[in-house]
């Protein structure tokens, strides 16, 4: 059975759900890829003033998270910034 599962294609229901989740994130954020790219470049500019980062590996995206007040989910801007060297570049 596990062997069969390995070759099994993902159910179309799951595919639909995953596609929708990604779609709604960009719909809700009302944020074009160009703007996201601009934000990313600005973040790189600021951070590199203080530490050396891997700008190729930097990834930013808008996702949803539970709000602290417990009133549904709120959007969050997540940035994953790999740091190469913590020392300030002089």
């Amino acid at each position: 059975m596990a062997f069969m599962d390995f070759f099994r294609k993902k159910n179309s229901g799951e595919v639909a759900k995953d596609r929708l989740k990604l779609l709604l994130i960009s719909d809700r954020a009302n944020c074009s890829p160009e703007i996201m790219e601009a934000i990313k470049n600005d973040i790189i500019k600021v951070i590199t003033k203080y530490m050396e980062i891997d700008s190729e590996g930097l990834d930013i995206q808008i996702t949803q998270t539970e709000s602290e007040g417990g009133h549904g989910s709120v959007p969050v801007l997540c940035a994953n910034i790999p740091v190469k060297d913590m020392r300030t570049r002089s």
Partner: protein
Amino acid sequence: MSEVIVITSGKGGVGKTTTTANVGTGLAKMDQKVVLIDTDIGLRNLDVVMGLENRIVYNLVDVVEGNCRIKQALIKDKRYPNLYLLPSAQTRDKTAVNPEQMIKLIEELKGEFDYILLDCPAGIEQGFKNAIAAADRALIVTTPEVSAIRDADRIIGLLEANDIRRSDLIVNRIRMDMVESGNMMSMDDVVEILAIDMIGAVPDDESVVIATNQGEPCVGDSSLAGQAYMNICRRVMGEEVPFLELKVKSGFFGKLKKLFT
């Protein structure tokens, strides 16, 4: 005091008009005084689903333009004495009415009726704005499809921006056999994605097509969809009892699942 409910979806063809007809008829069956207003000007449909198409004299635009009194335009349903329909105009377009006129019209109907149901046109333009202008709450109809859910999400955002205090979700045309085989999103999936409360799910049922053919809503009959619509009506009325909804829901879905497995 009457409650004004808009039935909306964004996407067309998901079952807004059918839902309006069934929820309206179901509420009337439970002795509520109900008026259904078709706000889809230019594409009149609620009258045929209700089987009242041969009795139209005046319409929504006639009332708004002062060609007749509201009472003259309301069609009384012979099967249910508490049920009325205000049909839309077929030969005009959405611009014939504006949101202020809708608010004024509904103000006049308030007090006369327990429930005022507004059948919203597809889209998010003028017709949508007219339909939601006077609404207290919304029933959002969607089907378990990517396109319908995406549009529903947009509608939820617009309703929030327009201060509609409560929105509930109806998942329409669900096929439990496909959900179980993993080829259709479940009610839970849809609720998780849209993050609003679900007030009911209606199975994809032949009886809905048959009922629409005959111009007689299937709410309250022995079919699965008829039962589902009746449960939705109970939940619409029972909003002061917060836990009842969940109980009824689980009971119903338990039965639904058993029937399909």
